[in-house]
């Protein structure tokens, strides 16, 4: 153990007027960590799945996010094409490799690269791992097929969210993440995203589009079996 570490821990124990904790206390604290129990959840998330989706849309919209409802995942490429045309953006984008199986070929005028984002990329499309209705927040997780740079470098960020992945509180989304795979290992990066980037640093006036995306669009895909 480094000198600094042992000295800092020693000082803490000295200030608390005790030695290292007894084994029984340590076991109880380890058990508390393993249990990772929930604390208090706000009442506003006590709704059925349709109610949660409605709450999510309401809260996300209030945070300057545009939400478009789609019937099926297969509709995503054409919805993206429509969006880019409406915003006068070039029909060129970078998408998460996880979305490579969508029928992009049906929109041949769209140029799609499946990779991480680089400086010049203007538009990205990524999947959401989950969404939190409580505050209209997306949960995006990193992985080989879901690079995190897509969430921050491009000016326009389009997120594909399936309605079945909308949960009430943050804790439900964390449970889904912990249940993923066999190890329960967290991804390197978990981004909770609520609206486009913003700042109030000049005279407390809120401006959208600080260093991250200026626009955040959610394509909300309804369950249809």
């Amino acid at each position, binding site marked *: 153990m480094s000198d600094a570490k042992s000295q800092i821990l020693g000082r803490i124990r000295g200030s608390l007027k005790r030695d290292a904790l007894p084994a029984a206390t340590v076991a109880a604290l380890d058990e508390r960590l393993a249990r990772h129990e929930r604390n208090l959840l706000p009442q506003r998330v006590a709704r059925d799945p349709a109610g949660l989706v409605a709450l999510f849309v309401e809260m996300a919209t209030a945070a300057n996010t545009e939400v478009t409802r789609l019937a099926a995942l297969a509709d995503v490429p054409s919805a993206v094409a429509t969006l880019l045309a409406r915003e006068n953006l070039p029909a060129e984008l970078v998408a998460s490799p996880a979305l490579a199986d969508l029928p992009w070929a049906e929109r041949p005028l769209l140029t799609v690269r499946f990779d991480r984002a680089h400086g010049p990329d203007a538009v990205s499309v990524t999947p959401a791992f989950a969404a939190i209705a409580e505050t209209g927040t997306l949960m995006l997780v990193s992985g080989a097929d879901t690079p995190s740079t897509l969430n921050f470098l491009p000016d326009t960020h389009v997120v594909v969210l399936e309605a079945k992945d909308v949960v009430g509180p943050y804790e439900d989304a964390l449970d889904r993440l912990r249940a993923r795979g066999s190890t329960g290992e967290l991804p390197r990066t978990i981004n909770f995203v609520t609206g486009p980037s*913003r700042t109030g640093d000049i005279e407390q006036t809120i401006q959208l589009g*600080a260093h991250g995306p200026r626009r955040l669009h959610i394509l909300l895909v309804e369950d249809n079996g």
Partner: protein
Amino acid sequence: MHATSHAFKKNAHEALHDAVLQRALLNLKAGFQDRRARTVAQLPEWEALRERAKAIKDHVLLHLDFYLERYAAQVETRGGMVHWARTGAEMRDIVLGICRSVGARTVTKGKTMIAEEIALNDFLEEQGITPVETDLGEYIIQLRHEPPSHIIAPAVHLTKEQVADSFRAKHTTLDPDRPLGEPRQLLDEARAELRQKFLDADVGITGANFLIAETGSSIIVTNEGNGDLTQLLPKVHIVLASLEKVVPTLEDAATILRLLARSATGQEFSAYTTISTGPKRPGDRDGPEQYHVVLLDNGRSNMVGTEFQDMLRCIRCGACMNHCPVYAAVGGHAYGWVYPGPMGAVLTPSLVGVEEGGHLPNASTFCGRCESVCPMKIPLPKMMRHWRERQFERHLTPNAARYGLALWSFLARRPVLYHAAARAAAWLLGRLGGARGRFRSLPLAGAWTATRDMPAPQGPTFHALWAARRRAPGR
């Protein structure tokens, strides 16, 4: 940063006469107070959440050694490195060592108050490494070579005209006649200036709002997205955090997160809350190759177990200063160090000593708004009183105040004498006030009478009136 907290009185006097600063400070109410009030009103569980959050942090502080050890072990299990720094100097050397080991020339920085506390930027520059602040407010004050004046809005003391002047002076390759009258234009220019710096940096340094003992994760909460670009793009990510940032689990962090954004900016949730766990994984296409955490003590281990332990619950939301009448009058720079407002008045003497920071706990009207808005229920006024007592014990209080207090306490413990003295003083002042019934100036009260008259006492004392009333028939 070199502390000038001992000069609070002079600093405050100058701030009160700075017309531009006074105009900038007017934005505090609509910018922070009103937004917070609206959002808090939409969450009926607010008070219950405050209690839970307080209980979580109190639990951590009583077992701080355990949670720090568990946290460090989890970071290392996931391929990260933990470094322990007893002092700011040790932390600076550790950061420099990591930067040197990868041959770093430029370092991007997300907003971190710990870096301000240890004066990291000046140090890195002396060592030939260029630090680039990327939070808009921090970027502005770095251009102006100023310290932050607020813990979440570092440039809150500036008007947009001052920012425009700084941009024209520093961004010399741009058209000097470009329009910069609106915040939007200023933001777009800063965004364009910083974009390449994000991509070119060798090391990214961020702070941490939370460290998670359960998973070894660090959490940052931001709005601009600069913190994420800072920790995502360079080869090396360094997290700077003080000891008390650790919480047990992600669920515990979620509870406190419900309080943080609402208290700070009045948002339901900040735009970005990011949980980082170790370096990039095999197969990842982006993310840092190295993940370092440097834990800073710098006096905090001495606060545990004392009457100042409650201060370690602070989550740096800024609500106390946003609601403080003293802060609103003088701004953050008057406090003379990194942490201003009520939280700074309590924390600064703990970290830099009561000799330097002892004035700050006197910069309070004891109105109690700071405690009532504090999401972590920190008894700030009570702790300021503790510091005043310490200041008194150490004979750091001015003599006039000491003798005045001694005289008052002598009288207050002798009611008969006290009533007689009060009667005599009221009679004397009433006579001296003359026909006008007011004083334009009074000895020992020059600061009070400089801007207003002191009314002279009229009639009998309160005690006399009260006694008469109790004797009156028909009561």
